[in-house]
């Protein structure tokens, strides 16, 4: 059984299509990153998965159970981080731990206090009076103490400075791998995501652009910088091309093809060029290459 299985998920907001026939599965023990620009449908997917939105068509199964009607037993298995690290901000760190410890059978407060020990917070400080970074640690600590099998983290990186983002990612990865947890994470900030995720799902408006292990994507998806002989010739955006960005004679060409294939393609299309160079990309570069800058 998969931890998450979404079949033919289709959703509209009014008449606006969010996506049609979205299919994906997350194996137990994997960390999957759902990446996409703002408005690509990441939060829609999270809302459907957690039973806060009924899809127009299709289904989303969490441990085999329709997400529209999750039972308490299944909800207990899911740790859910809401976008913006939303928590009961009227509580302080002790009150919130006391509250959640009464809700979950497998509650283990150790990781919560361990994470909080790294923060400069006073015992009676309300969560509403904490910085965004501190709140993120409280929210993560609570999820870890819940000891869920599946962690669903919606745009956890939002509002975090680089230090907190790195702390969050490193702690989460180490925890998930050591305890064979499944993680489903969305983010529109791609920086550092390579350190966290095993598999990626890149969404654009209405469609999936990539769905594969990160290593495979990073090996196969390539960027070539090509200098054209004639800057007036428009570069073709078909065939091998996934995305093309042209500024006069300089072309950034994104493709899954190898160098020889690209050279052959350019010759066949009758595009003379001065040079072609493969560029090393990190995940953020590749994400922008795939989805475009706009």
């Amino acid at each position, binding site marked *: 059984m998969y931890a998450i299985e979404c079949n033919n998920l289709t959703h509209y*907001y*009014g008449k606006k299509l969010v996506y049609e026939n979205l299919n994906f599965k997350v194996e137990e023990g994997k960390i999957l990153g759902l990446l996409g620009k703002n408005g690509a449908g990441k939060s*829609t997917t999270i*809302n459907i998965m*957690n*039973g*806060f*939105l*009924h899809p127009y068509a299709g289904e989303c199964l969490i441990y085999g159970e329709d997400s529209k009607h999750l039972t*308490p*037993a299944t*909800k*207990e298995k*899911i740790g*859910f981080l*809401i976008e*913006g690290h*939303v*928590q*009961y*901000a*009227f*509580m302080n760190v002790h*009150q919130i731990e*006391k*509250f*959640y*410890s*009464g*809700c*979950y059978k497998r509650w283990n407060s150790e990781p919560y206090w361990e994470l909080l020990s790294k923060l400069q917070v006073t015992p009676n400080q309300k969560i509403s009076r904490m910085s965004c970074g501190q709140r993120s640690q409280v929210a993560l600590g609570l999820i870890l103490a819940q000891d869920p099998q599946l962690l669903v983290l919606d745009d956890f990186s939002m509002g975090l400075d680089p230090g907190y983002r790195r702390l969050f990612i490193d702690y989460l990865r180490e925890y998930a791998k050591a305890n064979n947890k499944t993680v489903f994470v969305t983010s529109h900030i791609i920086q550092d995501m390579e350190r966290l995720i095993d598999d990626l799902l890149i969404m654009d408006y209405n469609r999936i652009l990539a769905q594969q292990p990160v290593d495979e994507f990073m090996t196969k998806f390539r960027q070539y910088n090509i200098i054209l002989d004639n800057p007036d010739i428009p570069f073709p955006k078909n065939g091998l091309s996934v995305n093309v960005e042209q500024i006069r004679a300089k072309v950034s060409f994104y493709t899954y093809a190898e160098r020889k294939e690209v050279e052959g393609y350019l010759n066949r299309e009758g595009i003379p060029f001065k040079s072609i160079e493969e560029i090393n990309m990190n995940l953020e570069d590749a994400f922008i290459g795939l989805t475009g800058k706009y």
Partner: protein
Amino acid sequence: MYKAIFYKEWLKIRWALMIFLLLGVFALVNIFLNVRYGVRFMDAHDYWYRIIIQGSNYAASLKYIPLFAGLGLAIAQYFPEVLNQRIKLTFHLPIRENKVLLMQQGFGLAALIVLFLIYLAVFFIGSAIFFPSEVINMILVTIMPWFLGGLAAYSLVGLIMLEPLWLYRVLYAVIAYGFVSRFYIQAVPMAYSNMLWFFSLTAVLTVILVLFSGYRFRKGEMHHG
């Protein structure tokens, strides 16, 4: 689980509860200071005549306090839940969504009823000093709809605040205003004596309406506007 949910609700409402406890007791003490003044320092015969024959209600200034207590407690309880859609956290707890809503609503109502019982106890003690039981009963029947109105207002605020769409919220608020204002039309003694059962029944029925807003939230109605 029950203990945890009630603990959360207590953290939200405790200050509002204290404030309304003090406010109500203060208003009641003030009422009886006025009664004492009327009986002792003005013409006692005339004062009694106004109450028994002319139907003056010595507790009239208490009228809207149960309503404000109901509204205040509901806002204290539901505002932190709807702010940043924190109700998602509550719905995500390992418990049925309707059950957790009813537990929240039940806790708030129980707290409100305890508050009202304290008001009524103070009312009884104060009244017993100055009036015979016939007068107290008469005034009690008169003020009872005000308390029932407070309970109905409490339940309806939950319905309104949890509703995901503003248009529906406004619509519910208008209907709720029309409904709750029925509880406050008259201050004349015994005006509602034949209708008390109706007020009680409708006030009780409003309790479960919050489930409808909860269902609409989970269906994702806020995303379809």
